[in-house]
């Protein structure tokens, strides 16, 4: 039992933070939002730092690191509200490494590691909401592989990514496929999202696809859990900053002749925000540390984590705005962006009520971290 970070992990954190603070400040972020919510150049900078290969084995051109390193990086990217979907890179790395045949790995992992290819998960369907097993996409075997017909929504950077990981029904069972965006039958319709990033509606019309695994639900659940852990860490980064700017504001802003940080009711709100942040940070650690556990244990743990994070995100985001007063609801000041980011993260990979259901249905007689 040990929650210290190694020196290497601290270096990784420092390098990422440095890039975020110097290379991805609020002004650059705003210009990327304005330009559509995704910058291939910025994504390339993540690659230059080696981050795109973070969780890819060294033989496939990556750094061969694990969930804790992923967490460290995501937390820092969260602090800068980086728009480029690094979460997706962690998902693609994990899904391909863990579930794809050797040929698919060899073809794609080095390209992910180098940053040449951005691969994103395209799983959301209209009727499914947060239920992973609901899938109307169809896969048919074609002469040299498979052909997919599907409509997938809210695909992160969907009109910018190089390829998609797509769940679809093959012979009544969910399988997972890889589809290149440049393939025939693929159309994308991109737009900005509420947090300033980018997504797309992706339509596949008999699009050629490569099989990742026929045990698609297992792999998809794994993908979502990687996503949850990364999202938890990202949210901790956002909340940490949201609390920090709120504290700074309260110590600066005067009303009725005194700093508003002198009002006890507001001070207690800060204490409650700190509580939510530290509970969230604890559960973010928990999520990443359980990511390699057996599936059932992992799913239970990740649901617990996302539930706690959801509660924390909503409270911290809303209160950060509230404690700022009027300036909190302006576009100009950063706190509203933290709030919107947290709002979107709460609804990513299952919202709070959804994960309450997961926790509730997976509950056992025992209790605690190790149960």
């Amino acid at each position: 039992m040990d929650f210290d970070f190694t020196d290497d992990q601290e270096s990784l954190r420092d390098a990422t933070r440095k890039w975020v603070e110097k290379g991805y400040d609020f002004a650059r972020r705003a210009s990327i939002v304005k330009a559509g919510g995704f910058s291939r150049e910025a994504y390339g900078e993540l690659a230059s730092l080696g981050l795109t290969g973070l969780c890819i084995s060294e033989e496939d051109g990556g750094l061969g690191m694990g969930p804790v390193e992923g967490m460290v990086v995501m937390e820092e990217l969260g602090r800068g509200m980086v728009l480029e979907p690094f979460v997706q890179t962690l998902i693609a790395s994990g899904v391909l490494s863990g579930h794809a045949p050797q040929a698919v790995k060899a073809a794609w992992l080095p390209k992910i590691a180098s940053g040449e290819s951005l691969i994103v998960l395209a799983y959301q369907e209209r009727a499914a909401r947060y239920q992973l097993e609901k899938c109307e996409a169809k896969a048919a075997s074609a002469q040299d592989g498979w052909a997919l017909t599907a409509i997938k929504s809210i695909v992160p950077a969907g009109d910018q990514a190089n390829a998609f990981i797509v769940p679809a029904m093959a012979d009544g069972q969910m399988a997972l496929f890889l589809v290149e965006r440049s393939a025939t039958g693929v159309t994308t319709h991109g737009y900005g999202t509420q947090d300033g990033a980018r997504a797309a509606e992706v339509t596949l019309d008999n699009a050629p696809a490569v099989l990742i695994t026929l045990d698609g639900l297992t792999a998809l659940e794994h993908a979502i859990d990687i996503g949850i852990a990364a999202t938890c860490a990202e949210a901790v980064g956002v909340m940490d900053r949201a609390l920090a700017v709120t504290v700074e504001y309260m110590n600066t802003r005067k009303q009725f002749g005194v700093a508003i940080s002198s009002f006890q009711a507001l001070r207690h709100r800060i204490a409650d925000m700190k509580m939510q942040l530290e509970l969230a940070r604890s559960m973010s650690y928990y999520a990443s540390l359980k990511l390699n556990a057996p599936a059932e244990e992992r799913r239970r743990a990740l649901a617990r984590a996302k539930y706690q994070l959801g509660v924390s995100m909503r409270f911290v985001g809303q209160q950060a705005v509230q404690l700022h007063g009027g300036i909190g609801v302006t576009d100009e000041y950063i706190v509203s962006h933290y709030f919107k980011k947290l709002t979107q993260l709460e609804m990513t990979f299952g919202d709070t009520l959804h994960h309450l259901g997961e926790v509730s249905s997976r509950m056992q007689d025992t209790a605690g971290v190790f149960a």
Partner: protein
Amino acid sequence: MDLAFTPEEQAFRETIRAWVQANLPADISHKVHNALRLSRDDMQRWARILGKKGWLGHGWPKEFGGPGWNAVQKHLFEEECALAGAPRVVPFGPVMVAPVIMAFGTPGQQQRFLPGIASGDVWWSQGYSEPGAGSDLASVKCKAERVGDKYIVNGQKTWTTLGQYGEWIFCLVRTSNEGKPQTGISFLLIDMKSPGVTVRPIKLLDGECEVNEVWFDNVEVPVGNLIGEENKGWTYAKHLLSHERTNIADVNRSKRELERLKRIAKTEGVYDDLRFRDEIAKLEVDVVALEMLVLRVLSAEKSGKNSLDIAGLLKIKGSEIQQRYSELMMLAAGPFSLPFIEEAMEAGWQGDFPGGVVANAPLASTYFNLRKTTIYGGSNEVQRNIVSQFVLG
């Protein structure tokens, strides 16, 4: 004690309902029912329709051309308008400055300003808040110096709602630095077309420009635009703030939006999800309890018997309910509330919305926008100060 409205009140309601049904433009109510963008024209069109009928100033006494309704009648009118999907009346003219002009203005000022307010022709704005003041309204810095028969106004106002459309603005200005902050404030009406007035819209978190900064740079204002006495403006401002207590809860709109929430939940397939449905059920009880609170206040006003000084509670609960229904609407759509497609919030947009349900387009924006409700009009923290002062002494 009787929960039912009297037959007279019921008949009154029917009259209003019929008139609103006949006169509220369908394109406008469509926008309101779906939280689509309302233009200046939409708002003013409805204001002029009400004005023509004599109901824009529906709270006005008869002597000033109002209908002379009692508290219950006003409530019924507001409820019928809200449920039918009428836009909220922009309050700065008919609800805010007009009562001050009636109470403290000269007959000349009344004749000059009230007709344009009553008809909906003149768009008024409010100039109370200043940068850095927040809920501390008395810390007015915007200065008016008397020079001959004019005031020279210099300073800045902010959070001026819809000020980009404003033609006139009523302002609290500082005319003296002596005594307590409250004592040197005056109440001034300013033509926004005067040289030296600059309006800059503030973009809010939902991307919309609902509020503005207003600068005054040596703006000349005739002394005839001063309401009442110099340095007594705080008294008039308090009169204004104490006016209109029940509608602060905005419960009628919340009733309409709760019904909309149920429709959205059905479309998104979560109305039969016990967990989600329970959240709606809690909100339903909140809305009923708030409405009962409002009705109690109305009844007390009608009978003049008991005074219920619980305006703070109405503001707190009303705003929390507004935030909650917008939150639940967004959560109902979940991932399908995440696309931010501004055009999709315009009526009649023909594009493809992800997932196909364009009704989801404004949900997150509305949720974001309504964070303001616990901040403005005296933040809920300030309201709790007031309530506790009342209870604890």
